């Protein structure tokens, strides 16, 4: 077997980074104005936007940095303690 020093693009190259999280962002869709600033600023790319403009979060890899809650002008994202 030939082992090449080549990595392939995969999710979770740093492990299940969702385990790092102390607080989780929770989206209140009734308050969301669909401005997508959370999508734009999420460093991790775990905020996803759907065809109707709705947003949701992939918790498997969300590190819980809290930027989405901070940039949300409508205060539709709350940071909730994990434990």
């Amino acid at each position, binding site marked *: 077997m030939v082992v090449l*020093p*080549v*990595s*392939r*693009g*995969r*999710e*979770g*190259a*740093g*492990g*299940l*980074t969702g385990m*790092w*999280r102390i607080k989780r962002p929770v989206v209140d869709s009734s308050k969301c104005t669909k*401005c*997508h*600033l959370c999508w*734009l*600023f*999420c*460093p*991790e*790319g*775990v905020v*996803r*936007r759907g065809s109707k403009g709705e947003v949701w979060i*992939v918790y*498997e*890899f*969300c*590190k*819980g*940095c*809290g*930027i989405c*809650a*901070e*940039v949300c002008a409508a205060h539709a994202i709350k*940071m909730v303690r994990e434990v």
Partner: protein
Amino acid sequence: MVGHQGITETFTLKSLTDEEYLLPGNAACPGCAAVMAMRIGLKALGPRTVLIVPACCMSVAQGHYPKTPSKVPVFNTAFAASAATASGIRAALEMKGITDVYVVCWAGDGGTADIGIQSLSGAAERGDDLIYICYDNEAYMNTGTQRSSSTSEGARTTTTITGKAERKKDVPGIMMAHRIPYVATACASYPLDFANKLRRAVSIKGTRYIHLLSPCPPGWRYPSEKTVEVGRLAVETGAWILYEWTGGRCRLTGPSSGLADRSRRRPLEEYLRIQGRFSEADPSKIEAMKKRIDEEWEMILELCKG
């Protein structure tokens, strides 16, 4: 031809692609502005991009073999050699007849202002067709916050425990002195400004340089959710000036275009107080920093006059 891939439109929140080229689950710290900007940068550049990464936070953020978060090819190279490697990759692509690929260096401030400056200067002098992006988190962050020549004056690092005495090296100024076709500054807190500067950069041939201010939560000592706010404060207080320089002409961009008048800038203290790294800066030091910022502005405004 506008760009190798024909990027012509101005990027807006809607027109940025939903395709992720920097995949979730990388090893960067929570709230990392460098990763935030790289995600947007790769969206703007598209899949036909080769990244060259010297030793920096971004080589750590790539995680563990055999995985990498990047969907585009990444070449991890030696600290001093990012621009030289890019020149070589461009030459190899030309030999193979491949012309529709962007060769992009993504280096930290240590790999640009200190260790990699000779290879960057060499590539700029040769006019090699590459885009060099320096994400400037103002210290050697992945080794634990040691001072670099790009660390701002007054900032505390583990090697300048009472605050750095010297002023920040003006790398965009050095690149302008090379008379390359495109030099710009950007800030991770203004991703669309950055994406549109990349759009302009790819429409030009030759060496193009973008200096991106990238706030760092552990190194600058602020909570991770404040990354965007810290970057915005850097621009709104005038401590960081957003401009682009093409063909001898300089133009202020984004919020900086309205801040030429000093009275319209927010007080510098707002930017300093939000970060722990300026805790050693006393009022006399802050006055000295304000003077330096005014000098920077004078120089840029002089360039803008043409």
